[in-house]
Each structure stands twice: as C-alpha cells, then as structure tokens.
C-alpha cells in the first residue's frame, strides 16, 4: 500500500465531514437581529450579526457601526475621533437616522467623553430641536440638557438653575419625558432648600404621570406624603400615605409609615378634621 493512502483516506473522510456539515443558515439574520442584540447590551453578537446581514442600506449600516463602536465605554479620544465624523456625516441627512446621529453626537460631548463639553452638547441639542422639533430625540435632548442646567451649572444660583430647567420643561410634550425632568426639578429644589410648597407641585405632577421604574414610585409616594405632613398639608399627606399602604403592601417601610400615620391622624383629630 503506498504510504500516501492513509493520508488520502483521512483527507477524504475530512472532506466528507465538511460536505456533510450543514451550511450556516444566514437567512434569518436581519438588521432587527443586530438591533436586538445591541438593545440587549450584546455588542459583540450584534457586530457578528451585522457582518452577516446581506441587505442593508448604507446609512443604516453606518449608524449601526457607530452605535456598536460606542457600545463599550469608556472609549479613547482616538476612538471618538473615528466615531464623531461618522455621526456628523449621518446628521447631514434629513431622516430619523440623522436625528439619532445628532442626538448621539450631543451625548458624546455631554456624558460619553471623559471630559464633558456642555457648551458643545447644548449647541448640538439646539440644532436637533431646530431641525426636527417634533422628534423624540429632540425631546429626549431637552431632558438631558435640563439635567445639566440643574446639576452642572455651578456658576448659576440655585433659583436660576431651576428656572433654566423649567424653560426646557415647557418645551416637553411627551408625558414620560416631562415626568422625568419634572421629578428632577422637584428633587433639585428640595436639595437647594426651596420651600416645600415650591417642591411638592413638581413631585405631585411627576407622580401623576405614572410609569416610573424600580423603587422610585414607592419613594415618591412616601416622599409626597411625608413632605406634605411636614408642610402641614395633613389631608394631602393622608391621601398619599393611604395610597402607599394600598400600592406597596410589602414595603420594608410599612412600620415607619404606620407610625407616622398614627401621628397624622392624631393631628387631624386635634384639628377636628379626622374624616
């Protein structure tokens, strides 16, 4: 037997495995796959999926590349030097992708880079609002800019910070986004020592929209009840404490609130206003 036969046999067997192996099925890989991975914080999988997508327009692909390049912060200045031109180029257009790209460019200057450039971010948010005033991304930009006005504008006095955020609040039409900024205005006013009567309307308005996440809804209902109690608005305090008992029966603060409710009811009874 020639010495090459075993090698030839092995090669043929190997080849048969190659031919028998199922071909990789790429038919299901679409841009939805890419965005789903990106939305789930899986940028590497998203990048692999993007490489497998067969038909995608150039602008969408460029946006995806920029998004995935940004997905694992922190990035170096060199990375930003590559990403920003991509975003700026996309922002030249006049579509949803352009608005998203401009929004991301503003975010890059506002929070993503190690040293924020708030002035540049504000200019980009202004451009976003001017070009696509109805866009969700412009609305979201107002919220983000509002946070800067509230907490990063050290040169302004507290009342001026709140006033600047309130100007942005007036431009918000999406209820959930109004809620998010209004809540922070209320909390900032509380920290800056404003009177409880200045603070409470913001908190009550934010709570009324609903849809807050995590522990915040529970915090907010207790907070409105307790601050109302401290401000002497006893009936309002009672309303919110009763809501707390109904909506958060498993809270770890039940005992604390129950004790406060006892004080509140005693105070109401003393005023002859127990009902």
């Amino acid at each position, binding site marked *: 037997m020639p010495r090459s036969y075993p090698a030839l046999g092995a090669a043929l067997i190997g080849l048969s495995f190659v031919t028998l192996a199922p071909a990789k099925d790429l038919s299901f890989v679409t841009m939805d796959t890419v965005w789903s991975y990106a939305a789930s914080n899986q940028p590497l999988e998203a990048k692999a999926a993007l490489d497998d997508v067969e038909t995608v327009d150039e602008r*969408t692909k460029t946006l995806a590349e920029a998004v995935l390049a940004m997905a694992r912060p922190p990035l170096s200045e060199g990375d930003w030097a590559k990403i920003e031109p991509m975003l700026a180029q996309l922002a030249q257009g006049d579509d949803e992708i352009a608005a*998203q790209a401009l929004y991301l460019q503003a975010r890059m200057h506002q929070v993503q880079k190690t040293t924020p450039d708030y002035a540049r971010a504000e200019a980009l948010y202004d451009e976003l609002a001017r070009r696509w005033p109805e866009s969700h*991304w412009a609305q979201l930009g107002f919220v983000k800019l509002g946070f800067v006005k*509230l907490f990063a504008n050290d040169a302004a006095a507290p009342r001026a910070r709140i006033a600047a955020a309130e100007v942005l609040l007036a431009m918000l039409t999406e209820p*959930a986004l109004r*809620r998010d900024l209004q809540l922070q205005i209320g909390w900032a006013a509380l920290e800056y020592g404003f009177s409880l009567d200045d603070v409470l309307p913001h908190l009550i308005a934010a709570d009324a929209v609903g849809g807050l996440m995590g522990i915040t809804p529970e915090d907010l209902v207790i907070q409105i009840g307790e601050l109302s109690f401290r401000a002497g608005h006893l009936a309002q305090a009672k309303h919110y404490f009763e809501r707390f008992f109904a909506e958060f029966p498993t809270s*770890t603060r039940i005992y604390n609130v129950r004790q406060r409710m006892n004080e509140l009811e005693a105070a109401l009874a003393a005023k002859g206003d127990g009902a």
Partner: protein
Amino acid sequence: MRKFALPVFVLGYVVAVWWVFTKSTPIVDERDVTIRIAHWQIELGPPDGIDAVIKRYEELNPRVRVKQVMVPGPVYRQWMRANFSGDTAPDIVEYGAWLDGLADLPVRYFDPLTEDLLEPNPYNQGTVLEGVPWLKTFADELSEQRLNSPEPGQYYCVTLSRGSQRLFCNRNLLREITGREEPPADFEEMRELFRQAHAYGEKRGRAVYPFAGSRDNVYWLMSFYMRGVTMKVGQRIDENGYMTVYPRDLMWSFLNGRWSYQEPDVKAGLALLAELSEQMKPGYMQFVRDEAVRQFLNGDALFLFAGTWEATSLRRLADFPVDALRSPQPAKDDPVVGSAIIGHVSDGDNVTGFGFYLNKRTPHRKEAVDFLRFLTSYEGIKLFTDHSGWPPSVRDVPMSEEAASALSPDDGFAYGGPNIAVGGATRTVFERHLHALTGPGGSVDKFAQLMDAEMREPVREALAIEQRAARWAMLPQDTRVVAMGQLERSHPDDAATELRRERLEAAQNLSEARALQIARQLRDLAARQNE
C-alpha cells in the same frame, strides 16, 4: 411453563401501570435534557433542600435531568465571570446585586422573567396559590428586584428564602447558668444574664462569655444595636422625606456636617457597644466567624449573634438544643441609651433572597423556567424548606417552628441612621480604631474623635464610588436606547418595544441625574475644603 405466562404478563402489566402512575420516570435513566443550577449556599441545609426538589421534579418530568452545581463563596465571582465569558455557564445561577465587580453581567447574560412571572404558576394548581400570578406568590412580590433590578421595570430572578438576624442560644447552658430555660425578656434582663454568665464561668473554672466573638459577629452585633440607637438622628437627616436614609444620603449628610460621632445619641450608642464588647472573649477582633462558631459549639459562649443563614448548620452541628431568639433591645428608660430610643428597631424584614437568574444563552429556556416554577411552587418550596430548614420565600406555605423562628413580624422601625460603618471601605476604619473604645485607656470620646477624623476620606471615596456606579450604569444605555429606536422604526405598532424603550430611558434618566447630583455634591465639598 405456559401456565405461568399469563400471571407473569399480568403482574408485569400491573407493575408497569403502578410505575407510570407513581413514578413517571423511565426505568432506564435516559433523559433528553440536562439543566444545571449553580449557587454558593453550600452551608448545611440548602443543598439538601434543592436536592429534594430536584428528585421530585425529575419524577414528574422524565425528560429532564437537573444537576446542582455548588460553588464555594470565595471563588464564586471569578467562577461566574469565567463561565459566562467562556459560554459554559449553567442554565440557572444564583446572583446578588451586591457582588462586587459583576454589575455588567445581568443585562448581558441574564434573561428577564417578567412575562413569565405575570402568569400563574401551573405547579400551584390545587393549592391555595392556584390562579395567582407567579410574582404575587412571593411573600415580598420580589421587592429586591424593584430596588436592584439590572433593568428597572424588569424582574430577572426568583427567590427561595428570607431571613433575619438572631441571637442563637445554647439552651442547656442557659439552664445551667440561670436555672431556667426562659430567655431574657428585655435588655435589663440581658444585663443581669451577663453578670450571671461571668459568675457561672468563675464557679466552673472555665470562662463562659455571653457572646461568641469574632470580627464578623462583632460587626453584625454592634451594627444591630447601634441601628436601634441612632434612628432619631436618622429621622432628622432624612431631609428627602423617604422615611429611610439611603447610604448615599447618609454619606453626604456626614460630609456636609449634618451629623457626626459627637452627637449625644451616637455617643450613647458607642457606650452601649463598649458594654457589649466586655461580654466577649478578649482578642475577638483577631478571629473570624469560624472561631465564634467553635466557641458557641464548645459551650464557651452562651449566644452567637448572626444571620439566620447559620441556623441549620448550628442546629445540625451542636450537641445541644439551639434556639433562635429575637435580640432583646434597650427601652426608652434604659440608663445608657434610653434618651435616644424611639422604639423597636426591625430585626428582619420580609425581603426574600437567595435569588436565581436565568442564563440568556441556555439552550433549554423552556425547561429551565419550568424547573424554576416547580422550585418556587407550593410543593417545591415546601420540599425546600422542609429539607433545608430555611424559611420559604413563597407565602402561605407551612414551615417548621424552627424555620418560622427566622421570620420577624412587622414591629420595628427601619430607618438607616449613622452607624459604625457608612458604606464603602468605612468598616475598616471602625475595625482599626475599635481598641480606642474598648481597649485599656479607651473611651467613647477618644473613639468618636478618631471616627470623625478618619472617616471623612473613606466616606468621600465611597460617595465617589456611588457617583461612578451611577455613571457607569447610565453610559451604555445611550446605544441601547438608539437600538430600540431602530427596532421601533421597523415595528411601529409594537407596543412592547416602545414600552421597553420608555423604561430604559426612564432608568437612564434616574441614573444620570443621580450621577450629576453626586458629582455636584463632591465639587461643592472640594470647593469648601479649598476655601
């Protein structure tokens, strides 16, 4: 031979019918699917509980094999990181939001259970929980997830148990010391018991200490008693009106001069800690938890203060009856701390723990979720509690008296006021200087001065870490929000995607504003220091 054929056939048929209706498992152990469940609760108890659940589950589900993977706590973080990175992680894993350095894992590797939790648990059919949404069957409706969910609004885990802090008592030794088995009813009786224990030790020629001491147990004990004394200060510094004080607010209020260790209430608490310190074997700060357990099991200490996770181990290892007592607390007329007391402090809450998360990449999601449903069903959790001794996370499930002793009624305040540690690395400051309170020449004043002087930098650093954590939670969300925006564009009528984007934006807004707010506080602090 023929006359035996029919009886043998009938007998075989009867055995087969019996097997099918009682066991439902194949005679040859071939199963299509294997799922693995990993955790670090390898003390005595929990592994037995999970084994019992697995055994019953495999009887009911002949296609599925479940393997329990037990990983020691000290290596759990590294083990998780390596296995998720290498795509070899089990289908179900225990995780806790407090595990350092793993904050990026949940959203990357775990799959939310929110939709599943809104449906009734099918394994609860025929029980008091039949028809109840799975989420609502948990005693606390998974409240920890409201506080720490990797993605606010989503539920990522189901829990197995709950617990509290207890004073474990050697009942035989208590009888020998006091002549009775009734534990002290209040803190004054505790003080009397301290004296009796010391006298008993002298009489028998071998010391008896009221408390088993180690660095860990002392920290738990002193934190608990300090918490009861500083609630009034906690109420005062709760300027936000949350009726509790979050660690970030406690840290800021300390740095901002809203409280210090010179407060009369805080000093009273320190005097109480000095008194407690005298009830332990000298040198306790050199020991770790195992030494305290050894002192307790050897009959050298009457009590061991610890979390109820120790209960099953202590009961199985001790050759005497172990009672889990609620710690007697100082009252308003206490001579040392009475003026600071507003009432009982909570010694446990209904928050459930021992949380299990679903691996996003499991090839057997359906089977893994099904196992989690059984594990936390009325039958499953009852098996767990009966075999582990740990109380169940699910409501309305009967439990032994011993397991029930780990649960506290809702009868105490839960304010988080000043304490011997206030987050971050501040516990080491307490440990480093405790001798100034309890050692020769030590005093409350000396210790309080040291704490005020030495705490500032670690507290500032801990607050800076909070700021960075909020910032890091927020940064990756920008690209996720835009990706969801693109998904919405291709499915404009998909309400679920729109809701998910809204929730993500809301969560990001909360983290972002918090990061900015704390950054402003830190700048404010730096500016004042530079003045």
